[in-house]
Structures are given as C-alpha cells and as structure tokens.
C-alpha cells in the first residue's frame, strides 16, 4: 500500500470528563474518497477539527503527507494543503461569491502583504476564482454578496473555495447538511466530478450520498473506529448493522 496522505495515530480528545475521541487511528490513501459515518455524538466533527487544526488532540499524532503536523496551527495546515468545509456554512458573508473564492486563490499565491494595486481587479486572482465558481455552477452568481446566496449555493460556494485552494486533501464536514433532496443530488454530482482530483475525507449523514461516493468508509462510534472498509464490506458487517445502520440497511 502506498504511503497514506493522512495518518491519524492514537488520537485522543476529551472535553471535561467526556471522552470524545478514544485512541483513534485512521489512514487516508492517495486519491480516495474516505467517508466517515457514525451516529450523532460519535466525534466526527471533533475529528475533522483535529485534522484541520482548530482543536489540538490530548494525545496522538496527525501525520499529513509524511510530515507530523500535530503541533501546527490551522493556518499553517491550510498553507500545507489541507482544505476543509464546515458543517455550519463558513463563508465571508459580506464578500461577493467571487471575492470569497479569490481570497482562497490569494492564500495559495502568497504575497498577501501587498498593500497597493486593487485586488478586485487582479486577473491573476479572478480568473482561477471564476473557473472554480463555474465548476460548481455559480458562475452567474459570482458578483452577488455571499450572504444573499441560497443555502445550497452557499454549500457549493464552500466547495468552490476548496477547489481554488488546490488542496492536497479536502475535509468535508457534512456538506449536505440542511440541503433539500434536489440540492443534495446536485452536490453529489458535483463531488463525483471532483472525486479523484485529490483525496477527500467526507463526514456525512446522508447514506445515499455516502454509498454513492465513497471508496472506503470508516464507521465511528463513541470516538472509536468500529469498522473500516469498502462500502460493500461495511454494508455487510454485522457489527455495523447492529450498532448503527439498522433499518437503513434493509
């Protein structure tokens, strides 16, 4: 097996007396879309936050591209190629959709201490940003303030931001949360199109989406990995069926 893009080694995290992540180890292989599923409170978002650096683990290591990044703050991890989306949409509401994405392009380009020249008119920033917006179908909405986009469009905007970062790994924290059936289908199509370009970790409750997209699935219960494998293996695993999937498997 090739060197994994991401390796989590014996992560542990508790909030007060509550153990949320309990000796968790996990690997993400190059190019794969690795879904993480589990009931509410299983520690999925905490896990994503530890990978992206918003929360530091109490114990264990996060190894990204062969490099130990456990001690790095979030901005340094992002600069190293780790992009993420948020369960609760996290965009810059006062910026236009284009500006949101252009800022991601700018982050990658460095030279953000430049104080002269109008950033809004820089082709170097706008062209890649428009391309990313076009890919998620937001091209015609580029100049709208992000706050005025519909919920599904905001979700797509987050994807465009991630695309513009050209990440080495993308963490998606429930990208379908709160979207309607049609929008979900559209987002699944979008992700299917992006899939393979870079590895992704997908946390999602929508099982249809997960089984449609994932190369591998890890099932998280009480902060531990209960099972890990291909969708077929996970589907067939009696432990998983008993603990979590239950009637959804019928």
């Amino acid at each position, binding site marked *: 097996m090739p060197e994994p893009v991401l390796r989590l080694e014996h992560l542990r995290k508790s909030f007060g007396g509550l153990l949320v992540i309990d000796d968790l180890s996990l690997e993400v292989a190059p190019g794969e879309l690795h879904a993480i599923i589990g009931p509410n409170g299983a520690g999925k978002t905490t896990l994503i936050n530890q990978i*992206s650096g918003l929360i530091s683990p109490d114990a264990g290591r996060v190894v990204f591209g062969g490099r130990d990044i456990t001690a790095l703050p979030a901005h340094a991890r*992002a600069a190293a190629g780790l992009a993420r989306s*948020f369960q609760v949409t996290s965009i810059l509401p*006062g910026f*236009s959709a284009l500006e949101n994405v252009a800022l991601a392009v700018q982050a990658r380009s460095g030279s953000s*201490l430049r104080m002269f*020249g109008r950033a809004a008119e820089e082709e170097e920033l706008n062209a890649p940003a428009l391309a990313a917006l076009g890919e998620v179908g937001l091209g015609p909405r580029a100049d709208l303030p992000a706050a005025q986009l519909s919920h599904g469009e905001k979700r797509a905007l987050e994807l465009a931001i991630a695309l513009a970062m050209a990440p080495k790994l993308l963490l998606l924290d429930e990208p379908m949360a709160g979207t309607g059936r049609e929008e979900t289908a559209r987002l699944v199509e979008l992700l299917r199109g992006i899939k393979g370009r870079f590895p992704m970790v997908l946390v999602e409750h929508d099982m249809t989406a997960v089984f449609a997209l994932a190369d591998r699935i890890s099932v998280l219960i009480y902060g531990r990995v209960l099972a890990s494998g291909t969708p077929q293996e996970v589907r067939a695993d009696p432990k998983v069926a008993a603990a979590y999937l239950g009637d959804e498997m019928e």
Partner: protein
Amino acid sequence: MAKAAPIETRAAPAVAHAGVAVPGLIFGVLAALPAAAVLAPENYLLALGTRIMTFAIAAVALDLIVGYGALVSFGHAAFIGLGAYAVGILAAHGIGELLISLPSALVASVLFALATGAVSLRTRGVYFIMITLAFGQMIFFTASSLAPYGGDDGLTIASRNILLGLPIFKDPRVLYYLVFAALAGTFFLCRAIVGSRFGRVLCGAKENPTRMATLGFEVYRFQLVAYAISGALCGLAGFLLANANDFVSPAYMSWQRSGELIIMVLLGGIGTLYGAIIGAAAYLLIAEFLSQWTEYWQVIFGPFLVLVVLFGRGGLVGLFSQIARKRHA
C-alpha cells in the same frame, strides 16, 4: 406596475470603492477654506481647519482598523501623544529638525503599536477594547510623571520644527496646507490599503477569522501590521498637533481623547474612511459652536450623538445616503 422593493445591499468594505464624489467634495472644501479665512479674525478659521484635519488624520487611521478590521482600539490617543511628545522632548533638547523629529514620532508610534498590539491582538471584542485602554492609560500616566518634561502640566515648545533650516510650520497658511497634504496622503494610503490584497485579508478576518485561518492566513500577523500602520498615522497626527499648538501635554493621550476618536469614526460613518474626516469635522465644529453658546454643551451633544447612531446607521454618511435614496424613490 409595482416596482420591486430595492434590496438593501450594503456594499462590503472589500468591494466598496469609497466613492469619488464625496472625498472630492471634502478635499475641495478643505483646499478652498484658506480663501475664506479672511472672513474671521486672527486666522481663526485656519487654526480651526488645521485642528480638524489633524484629528481627521487620526480618525481615518482609526477607521482603518475599526471599520475594516473590527479592532476597536480604545487607546489610540496614546499614539497621538507619542508623536506629540517626540516633538516636545526633542525640542526641549534643542532639536527642532523635522528630519529627526518626524521619523522619531513615527518610529516611537510603530514600536509602541507592535509591542502593545502583540499582546492586545491575542484578545477579541470587549477584551481588546479594555486592554488597549489599559495600554493607553499606561502611556498617559507615564507622560504625567515625566517631571523633566513638565509632568502633568505639559511642555511648551519654544519653536516649531524646521526643515533643513526652513521654518515651514511658521506661516499658518503653509502649516494648513502641510496638514492638508498629510491628511490627503493618509486618506489615499488607507484607501489603497483597504482595496489591496492586504486589505482583503484584514476585512476577511473581521468577517470570519476561523474561515481565514482555514484558508491559510495567519490573521494575527495581518492585524498587527494594520495596527502598526494605524498607530504610525496617529503618531503623524500627534507630530502635527504639537507643531500647531506649540505645546504638548498628557491630556493629548487621555482616555477621553481615545473615546473622542471612536465617536468621530462612528459619527461620520464607520468603514468608509471619508466618513472619519466628516466625523472629525462634525465633532469638532459642533463642540466648538455649542461650547460658545452654553457651558453645558455636552448635555445637547450627547443626545445628538445617540440620535445619529440610532437613526443614521452608518453615521452621517449613512444618514445622507438614506436621504438621497428617499429622494430618488
């Protein structure tokens, strides 16, 4: 046919090009003021205009970090004081050369901004307000205890700064235009900054710091640089104030002064830069005329401020644009 209700779109600071008409009008009026100065005795208008523009520099500098970075500094008068004291202390030692005193004023302000910003910017919201206030008070009491330089009473400056032997600040008209140039320079510098890549990061950090971090920006670094620039520009204002008043005192850096700067920014309209100039002018003019009329002018001024903030969201600039929009409708 019913017209669709206009959607309230407050242009984001990042996209708002601060207009051309309003700043043009402001600088036009300021440039023409000396021509009208003959109408009032003893250069009264010139002195008032110089004073307004000096505080406008500080207000624009404060708006850079408050309006575009949501960093509400309640200690910005400290930088005015540092700039002014640089002039005063050097003058007390017989050094009146601008090429020494101006860089001293700027360097002192930047160093103080970097040192205090490095600590303050670790905090957010109300804690940031309180800690900047604390640092401001620290400088205030330090100045008050500087016995060799007048302590509480302040320090009279025997002669204004000279540039390579030329007494450039001597003529009130020349002084006026030098301050005018400094204000214009400050305004256009800040406007360039907010529209630049750097300004975008600053605005982004105001909107959503977590998002900015996960994009790969270390927002703290950008905020510190902005804080230092803002401090340096207030130091410039202090430098000019000392030269215009021939006097420096700890009162320049009292917390009331810091509060006045915030009020100027709010009164004019936050996050527009030119609003800060309007705010400084409105504040100082209203204070000037009301205080001539009655000793208790603050009783009138206080409620007026509350009304502007309540009804003119976006200060005077916001109020005017609301009125203009109603007329169009």
